[in-house]
């Protein structure tokens, strides 16, 4: 507890917490924007894990580039941006078709 800034389990626990709340938001929100925010939260948790492992376990895993984790996090951020573009386009489409973004009412693809 005293040494929080270089304490990997604390970072991991925080990102697990973020991930869990992201699951809750993605599964239980009715509005499509809420689901999207949950997915963003989960992606952020994963990206934070990459950087935390890279920085705080550097001496343990010593092979390859010294910025592996940073670059993976950068790619995660880019993919989150793409996901945001496509998700907001789909939300616009659902809204244009039925004047609401309630996910429970978009059931055309239900088997």
């Amino acid at each position: 507890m005293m040494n929080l800034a270089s304490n990997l389990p604390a970072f991991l626990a925080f990102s697990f917490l973020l991930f869990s709340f992201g699951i809750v938001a993605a599964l239980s929100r009715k509005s499509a924007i809420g689901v999207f925010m949950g997915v963003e939260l989960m992606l952020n948790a994963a990206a934070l894990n990459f950087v935390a492992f890279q920085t705080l376990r550097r001496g343990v895993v010593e092979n390859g580039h010294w910025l592996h984790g940073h670059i993976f996090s950068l790619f995660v951020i880019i993919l989150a941006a793409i996901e945001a573009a496509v998700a907001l386009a789909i939300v616009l489409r659902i809204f244009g078709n039925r004047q609401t973004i309630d996910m429970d009412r978009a059931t055309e693809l239900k088997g």
Partner: protein
Amino acid sequence: MTIADIFVGACFILGAFGAFFTAFHPNILYAAISLILSLLSVAGLYGALGADFLAAAQLIIYIGGILIVILFAVMMSEDIYKKRFFEGAKKYIWPTIFSGIVFVTLTRVMMQVDWSNGSTPDFEPTSRAMGWALVGPYAVTFQYVAIILLFGLIGAVIIARPAIKMKQRAAEIAVEDNTEEKDA
């Protein structure tokens, strides 16, 4: 207890609060603002881990993105101010149990590992090294992500474009053709 520890602890607390309200606040506007808080604290943690470039990228990309999300939420939600806290609490039960199981499982797995011999963050600038890495060992991945981004944006434009109602348009064309024939 150094100043870095206090900063990291504050980021943990603020981020946890933001994530909680993102998941549980019934008003989608406040949930989006809480999401900003959570993402800001993640950016602060990037900074505390010595990832200065990532902290800046997180700020720039996510603050703009979340502003647009807030815009969408305000535009498309009906009566966002009428709901009360935990009004629709029933739909939260099973997701909360499931995510609690996920959290407990991950934490137990983490507890089983010995994390004692780690390293401390060093605060040298990373942007130059990241630039070299993106054109060096990660050049192919970088191009691949760029192509994915291009196709994703094209797909987003195609999806978001207003639909041309094909049957209606065909009927209009047929009517135009008929009138032309009658005129001739």
